[in-house]
């Protein structure tokens, strides 16, 4: 008798399982057909870094102090600054990141003394060459402006 009970209970559990799946057939799908439709990125999304554009100056505030360079765990950032004349402040003239090594930790953003770095919302970051991961932030800022 125990065996028949087992069979009946087992069979019933299978039917209960099938009921769960069949009900799903007419439920709305939950997937997003990615290239056709895109979701909004969250406001906190951490893409690679980029320069903040300050309205006062219309440009970035990077003084090429190199804090981000020193804090970067993977030495992704290369920054160089120059003084336009002797008594002026130093300004970044070159700012490159190699995104392909970046771990998106955000230490550069946190430690930037002039708060000129921010995360971009960029998420389509696949490239054909590893050199495509090298991004010139100054050029990027000029293009976006």
């Amino acid at each position, binding site marked *: 008798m125990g065996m028949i009970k087992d*069979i009946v209970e087992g069979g019933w559990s*299978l039917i209960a*399982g*099938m009921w*769960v*799946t*069949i009900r*799903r*057939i*007419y*439920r*709305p*799908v*939950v*997937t997003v*057909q990615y290239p056709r439709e895109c979701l909004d990125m969250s406001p906190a999304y951490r893409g690679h870094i980029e320069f903040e554009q300050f309205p006062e100056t219309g440009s970035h505030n990077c003084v090429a102090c190199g804090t981000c360079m020193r804090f970067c765990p993977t030495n992704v950032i290369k920054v160089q600054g120059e003084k336009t004349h002797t008594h002026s402040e130093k300004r970044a003239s070159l700012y490159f990141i190699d995104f392909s090594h970046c771990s998106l930790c955000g230490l550069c953003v946190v430690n930037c003394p002039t708060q000129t770095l921010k995360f971009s919302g960029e998420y389509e970051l696949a490239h054909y060459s590893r050199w495509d991961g090298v991004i010139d932030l100054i050029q990027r800022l000029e293009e976006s402006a």
Partner: protein
Amino acid sequence: MAAWQNLVNFLGPDLARIVVGVVGVLALVQVNALFLVWLERKVAAHIQLRIGPKEVGPFGILQSIVDGIKLVGKELITPRHADRKLFMLAPIAVFLPVLVSFVVIPFSERLLIRDMNVGVLLIFAFSTFNVLAVLVGGWASNNKYSLLGAVRAVAQNVAYEIPLLLAVLSVVMWSNSLQMSEIVASQSKVWHVFSMPVATLIFLICATAETNRAPFDIPEAESELVAGFHTEYSGMRFALFFLAEYSNMLIVSAVATTLFFGGWKSPPFLGFLPVPGLIWFFAKTYALIFVTIWVRWTFPRLRFDQLMNFCWKIMIPAALLHLVVYAGIIKIVR
């Protein structure tokens, strides 16, 4: 000359019938497999709250054709220490019995290629051939996963053949014939699914096991044996295994329809509808296939020893008991 003409006269209509039939069956098998692949992906997707194929053609219906073209274009890889001849033979051997089985299936009242008086026997004789191909393919691949898969397949198919045939035997006894059309005719009043539900259940379970569909897909068991017996197959050879799997699904569903669900006959209470038998037949067959797909995407897989225990300890005694009981009933009724 006379002898030759005699032969043509003798074979003439029959030969034409066979040629047309085989061509028709080939077309049916291909189209069916393409459709079933699409159907399976679509049903699975909707069960899993996805969309499934949607890019190629309306509702992605041409997806499997595109996949087929891709598979044809792929390189046929033979492993280095494989048994080359057998390795090439296996995909063909797995496909052959599929074609033969269609010869005796009555799609409608008139539409059947050959109405043999041993139709049921022929189908089950050839479906056993399937397992040989799987064994050959698994063994010739020279891969341990393939070998394990092939061994499992043999044990499983041999075991499940028995309750399957026992279940069919009840039907044969009831209708007193091995001829498919006779069996359909015997269901004009009551379908066998209502007169012998236990046999139907046994048949459907065993048929799922015979076609290596989940939850009995242990010869392929993708999470254990990678892809089981066809791990090493690529390109069109793999496609043939795939084709055979879906064609087998069609065959067992068609046979189940014929044996238990009244074949091409309309349901008794819908007899007034002017729907041809062919439509009824395919409607029933594909409904059964849908259930198989539904089951596959719901359950986990059984373990090998549990599968065998289930067969030997539950299915075979149940089928035997069923046979004895029905033999008694038939004796009393007639």
